[in-house]
């Protein structure tokens, strides 16, 4: 017998009613996402086939934007750069984020302190990214704190030029801005690990390192994955951090798009955006193969 076949008609009607009201309750979200997410994406896809002159663009079905994009060696180096930024940022945010979350979840004993220290880690998330980038200037500048300190310690004679407006500064800013996207999901997963599992491992004679590699890391994998998806997609889609922290000397895909937009070359910007979107989605799809996020909420 099929499930639900023996429901009374009243129950069936109640279930239908619940489904209907859920549908109505979800309407506002559907409306927002339809008009400000799905439609714009469809529009970008469409415009990527349009053609442009210097001052206007018009409907067409042309592959010239894509031909130009894939025909240019700049595209490949810029995409490579984007992956390098994402990879480096991912490694650093993961190492730092995991260590911080591990400390908060398993080494801080009182719940109150856990909450206080966790909040200290998350508060910067609610402040302006642009201000947080600007605030690196007095640290990294030619006459900044870092150079002054290194010179006074006798480590270097001349101020280092590559501290600010360089790849180093870009990755540093990414790590600074996005480590909390690692800390939060990893900490969240760790807090749900049954402490008795760790006790059991210890009673069975496992060392601290063995507990970490055999118990904590495998159980924390979903949190690590969610954090990784956040960090990788944020870095891949970024354009402002790269522009500001490299002093406009370096480019990633986001900057390619925003430069085209600045020149009013919308079809070309759209083609780059479509390729970026596909790249991001493929990256996420690969990462999602390792975890079912719906189970983790």
């Amino acid at each position, binding site marked *: 017998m099929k499930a639900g076949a023996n429901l009374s008609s009243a129950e069936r009607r109640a279930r239908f009613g619940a489904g209907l009201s859920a549908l109505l309750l979800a309407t506002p979200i559907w409306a927002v996402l339809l008009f400000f997410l799905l439609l714009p994406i469809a*529009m970008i896809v469409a415009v990527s086939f349009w053609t442009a002159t210097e001052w206007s663009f018009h409907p067409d079905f042309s592959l010239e934007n894509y031909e130009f994009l894939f025909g240019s060696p700049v595209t490949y180096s810029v995409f490579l750069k984007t992956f390098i930024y994402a990879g480096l940022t991912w490694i650093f945010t993961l190492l730092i984020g995991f260590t911080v979350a591990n400390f908060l979840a398993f080494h801080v004993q009182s719940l109150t302190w856990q909450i206080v220290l966790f909040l200290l880690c998350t508060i910067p998330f609610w402040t302006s990214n642009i201000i947080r980038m600007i605030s690196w200037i007095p640290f990294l500048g030619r006459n900044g704190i870092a150079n002054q300190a290194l010179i006074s310690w006798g480590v270097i004679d001349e101020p280092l030029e590559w501290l600010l407006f360089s790849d180093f500064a870009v990755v540093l800013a990414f790590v600074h801005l996005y*480590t909390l996207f690692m800390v939060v999901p990893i900490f969240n997963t760790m807090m749900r690990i049954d402490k008795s599992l760790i006790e059991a491992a210890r009673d069975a004679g496992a060392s601290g390192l063995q507990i970490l590699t055999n118990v904590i890391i495998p159980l924390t994998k979903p949190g690590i994955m969610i954090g990784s998806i956040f960090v990788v997609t944020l870095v891949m889609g970024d354009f*402002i951090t790269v522009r500001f922290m490299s002093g406009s000397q370096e480019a990633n895909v986001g900057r390619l798009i925003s430069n085209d937009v600045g020149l009013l070359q919308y079809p070309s910007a759209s083609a780059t955006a479509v390729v970026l*979107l596909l790249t991001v989605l493929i990256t996420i799809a690969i990462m999602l193969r390792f975890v079912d996020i719906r189970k983790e909420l």
Partner: protein
Amino acid sequence: MEKRPLSFYILAGFFGLFLLFLYGPTITIAILSFQGPQGGLTFPMNGVSTHWFADLFEQQAVGDIWGSFGRSFALGLMVMVTTVVFSVMGGLAFRVRFPGSTILFYVVIASLVIPSILISLGVGLIFNQLGWDVHWWTSGFGSQLTWTLPFGLLIMFAVFNRFDKSYEEAARDQGASSWQTVRYVILPIIAPSLIGVALFGFTLSYDEFARTLLTAGSYNTLPLEIFGMTTNVTTPVIYALGTLTTAFSFLIVGGFLVAAILANRRRARQASDAGKGMV
């Protein structure tokens, strides 16, 4: 008390350095914003003054920052209220399976991971093709919702996954209508988490840059105005502005946290009347 192992102190030291890394730059510009009138963008301090804060009140020095602050504040409130209302509705909806629920879930996740500049570009194109002007409270508002709504919804998912359904069933058994159940049982129970959703809604909107870049139109929001300043302002006035707006963010976050603590306390006091009725 048990003696702490060495690893605790090493990790605590690491954590301390991490906090320094997080807050050090912000504290540095807070100090530097009190530079003397002749001071520059880096140390040493050239005297101490509030000169650069005073400059913020002069149009010629900084442009229209107060106007943009007003717009960002209004937009933040609009986004906050909308995010809370729509997220609660969405959270309630997702408690049962409904037609399209799986697709909607994936669209929500997509909204979170799609590069912001695509939203900016796409919404700009749509408005352009429809012949509408982009404006911070129309296109800017909608673009920001694509960032705040997923956060709000994820919080609601987490809340409802931990929600004890027997409260609702009890209400229904006593004859409450669905609306009464929502109004008098569910909403009071989830109220403290709504403070969290509101915090996300306001602050993410207030600080949003990429999604408003091409959708705000001719009137800048504060982050856009600040970014404009970075290209042509080379005095500590930008630190003064950064310090003020960060202080404002801290104030907002602090306000929400206090509200959340109070709401939790209140709920703890009033939560249960078990055993007090039939004596």
